[in-house]
Each structure stands twice: as C-alpha cells, then as structure tokens.
C-alpha cells in the first residue's frame, strides 16, 4: 500500500463520511473502507476508471470536480480528499473553496515541484522535469498548475484557510512540516499532504 494512503487513513476518523475527488480506480476508497469503515463516495472523470470502480462495488459518480462539486450541500462530508490532482485544475482556487465548502475538513496532497531532484533536473538538464510523481512530458502533462510545498503553505495564507496538519513525504517516510523546517522539507520531499479547514 502506498504510504500516502496510510497517512491519509491516519488523518481520518472511523465511520467518517468521505468524498474522494478524482478517485481513479478507487484504490484509496477500498483502503479507507477496509481500514476506517468509511462511508465513502468517489468522483471520477475517466469512463474506464468509473467502470473499474463500479466493478469493485464502490459508489462512484462520473463527473468533473470543477463542475460537479456544487451539487453537494455545505459540510455534507467529514472529509473531502483531493489526491495529487490540484495541479491539474484550471482554477485550483475555485476547487479548494468548493472542497472547504462541502467538507468539514479536506485532505489535499501535492507532488512537490520544489523537490531537489526536480530542481536539479531543470538546473542540469535544462528541460522540464520528469520524475516518478511527475511522469509526463511538458506537452502532454495534465499538470498545468504545479506548485511546491512552500507555494501551498503560502497559498493557505493568501486564501486564508487553516493548515491543521502538514506532512512531508520523502522516500515513503513521513515527517511533520513546521514553520522552521519548511525550506528543508520543501527541498527534501517529493510529496506534501495537508489536512485543511476553513
């Protein structure tokens, strides 16, 4: 199991009502049902992945987070999860606002563009970085709004939402991000996981 999923699972309470936005094949959903008896729904845009979720017996709605979150009432979920997809939205601000509106809390994970390997790639090769968490070429990537852990922390101040927990992941090893270690974590981690609320 991906350590990202274990961390997310540790962030949520048992029997919670959860929405996984961009749930893909529903692997995290299955994990949270098993680990946390979560009452969980998924939204996914890919028809193939929606079919895969149905085949697993998951409750899934085919749709697009930028258009289809508005149907959910305020605070209708305990947690809304957005796993490594914020950077793919046309309007990340709008999506974050929607997550915070429909969820009491939201969990957002981001591939860290400030990771040293990414920086080194651009510095030495002079081409757009391609890594394990960012596997696409610049011309075919869905990631149009990439950011660093530090960017996201700054973003939370601009948007005035609260970072209840900030966790950095480095080679599957989690650690807490604080104000004092932010620059180090921003360099050494490939993934950021944030528990946020308005």
């Amino acid at each position, binding site marked *: 199991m991906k350590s990202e999923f274990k961390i997310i699972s540790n962030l949520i309470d048992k029997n919670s*009502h959860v929405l996984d936005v961009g749930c893909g094949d529903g692997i995290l959903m299955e994990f949270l049902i098993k680990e946390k008896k979560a009452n969980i729904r998924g939204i996914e845009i890919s*028809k193939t992945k*929606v*079919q895969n979720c*149905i*085949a*697993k*017996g*998951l*409750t*899934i*709605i*085919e*749709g697009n987070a930028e258009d289809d979150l508005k*149907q*959910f*009432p305020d605070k*209708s979920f305990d947690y809304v999860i957005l796993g490594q997809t914020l950077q793919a939205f046309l309007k990340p601000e709008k999506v974050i606002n929607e997550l915070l509106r429909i969820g009491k809390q939201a969990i957002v994970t981001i591939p860290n563009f400030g990771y040293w390997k990414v920086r080194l790639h651009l510095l030495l090769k002079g081409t757009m970085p391609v890594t394990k968490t960012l596997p696409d070429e610049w011309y075919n990537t869905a990631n149009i709004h990439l950011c660093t852990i530090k960017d996201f922390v700054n973003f939370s101040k601009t948007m005035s939402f609260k970072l209840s927990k900030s966790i950095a992941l480095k080679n599957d090893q989690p650690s807490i991000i604080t104000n004092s270690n932010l620059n180090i974590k921003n360099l050494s981690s490939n993934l950021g996981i944030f528990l946020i609320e308005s």
Partner: protein
Amino acid sequence: MNFKENIKTITIDKPLKLDCGKTINNFPLAYETYGSLNKEKDNAILVFHALTGDQFVTGVNPVTNKDGWWSYAVGPGKSIDTKKYFVICANVIGGCMGSFGPGHQNPETKKIYGTDFPVITINDMVNAQKNLLDHFGIKKLFSVVGGSMGGMQVLQFVSNYPDKTKTAVPIACTSSHSAQNIAFNELGRQAIAADHKWQDGEYSSKNTIPDKGLAVARMAAHITYLSKKGLQEKFGRKLQERDDLKFGFDADFQIESYLRYQGSVFVDRFDANSYLYITRAMDYFDLVKQNNGNLSNAFKNTKAKFFVISFTSDWLYPTQENKDIVIALNSIGANVGFVEIKSDKGHDSFLLDVPDFLKALKNFLDKSYLEE
C-alpha cells in the same frame, strides 16, 4: 388476438384511486416472471417496461414469437442474472398485453372502453404494480430497474414506497417530461387520430384498426430513439434494392424502407388507443411538480441505493436530465452512483448490445446484492 393462454394475470381486487379521480377495482394485471424467488424472498427485481414494451422481458415472447425486449440484459448469466434473481415484470395498466387497458370491455356498458378508458399516470401504473409484491409475499425488493418510461416508474416507485426496495436503477430517463418529448408524443397521437379508421377510438367495434396512423406514429418515434451518427453509419444514403434513384415516392433509401418496416410490424403487436394512453401518462409525469418544485423531497424518506445511467448519444432523455436526478439525490446525501455510457446508439442504447452498459448494470447489481 388469440394469446390469452400465454398470459399470466392476477386480478387486483383492492380499489385503486387513479390520479384522474376515478377508482378502479377488480382489474387484471398481466405479468411474467423469470428465475426463482429464494427462501428469504430477498432476490426479487421488479423490472418496469418502456412505452411499447410488455411483461415478456426475455426469452421468446409467446405473442410475437420474437426475443423479449430486454434479452440482452436479462437472462441466465446476464446483467440481470435470472440464475440469481427473481425477475418480475408487469404489463402497465393502459397497455395492451393483458393488463387493464382501453381494449378491455367496460362492464357497465358492455362496450370496449376505447377513449372512455380513464387517463392513467405513471403514478397509477406503479401503484397497480405494487400489488405484485403482496401477491408474491415480498416485503422488500432487491431492486427496481427500468429504462425510459421504465426509469420514470423506478423513480415514482421509490418515491411512493421508500422502504420497499434495497436498490433502484433508473436508466435513460427524466424526472419531468420535457416540452420536446411532449411534442414528439403529440405528433404520434395526432398521426393516429388523423387516420380515419381510428373512429374516435371506437375502431374495435367497427372491426378495423388505424394501422396507417399508428405506423406513422411509430416511425416518427423510432427516429427519436436513434442518433444522427448511428443512422448515418447504418444507412447513410444507401439505396434499397436498386441501383439508382427512381424519381418517385417509393422507398428509394434504405432508411425509408427500414422505417416503413418498423411501422408495419409495430401495428401487429400494439394497440393504437394504448399508444395514446401510455404517451399521455409519460407527458403527465412531473416528479418535480409532485414535490412542489423540489425533486429531492421525492427521495427524502428512502435509504435505497441508486445507480443512474445515461448514454452520450441519447438526445431524447439526455445526460443532463439524468444528472438532475443525481443532483437531487446528492443534495440530500442519498447513496447514488452515476455513469454516462459512451454509445452511438441513441436512446435505444439501453435495449441493445452495449457492453459497457451491460457490464456496469451487472456489476452494480451483483456487488450491491452482497452488501448488508
């Protein structure tokens, strides 16, 4: 028509108050079943048929000798697996396959009802069919499933009987019949009424049928069940058994010949007055209005798990109308899944061999059946 011996019927003696204000009782409801009801009586699926369907869902229809209308989806090992589930389907009231309809005799006047038959609604159809649960001693269905007008009945059923089904699958339908759909239905009704043999609905007593009018109604409706792309790919401008245009009004094009055929076979199996009554019931369907403008209220008392399905090329009941149902359910935190199936086969997709649809339906039912 001499097919009565192949039709199972129960007589509903409980009076049924119709939306039009009249009450009916001791009326026949024709049905068919497939598979067997288990000991726990928890494996029953009530399938609702569409406008021109009937109770013969799968296998060979004993009246038409053709495959049942949902043979792709229902049968042993299929999406609605009759090895697992007990499938019940009734002919809607107002229909012409044995259930109480305008072709029946009015016991008071001893005349065929014709247009004296009361106007019925989707609500009336569903309330009549609810009696089947009592007949089979089923406390709670495993599922209610239907496409098009069948989907409307699914929505109405859950609204009327919120604790009588574990799951609900409305397919390619709407919660409120659109102006466009009322318009198409009106076209069909006017085609029938314009046939002089219709005789204000009293054609049976005059030993005739408005076959031309009914065929035109069917031809017009049939176009709405397909998609432009599907028609173009299947027929294009191909000519019918000729090398060139004949400069006349015979069926030069294959699509013309196809539609004429569809019209002609339809009149052999369907009653013109039933066509009027059932299309009227669809037009009157407005679950939003029934709930004072808030569709969510229709579902606020149910714990049923919903699965809404639409098709990309369905322009009669487009995805957005199906999605409105999903939105109404989500806004009250109901358990609902939704998928839009990619298909060029138009509204008819749910009746045809569309593997993604058949797979999704099967997976939803089989996985839900295992859940507590």
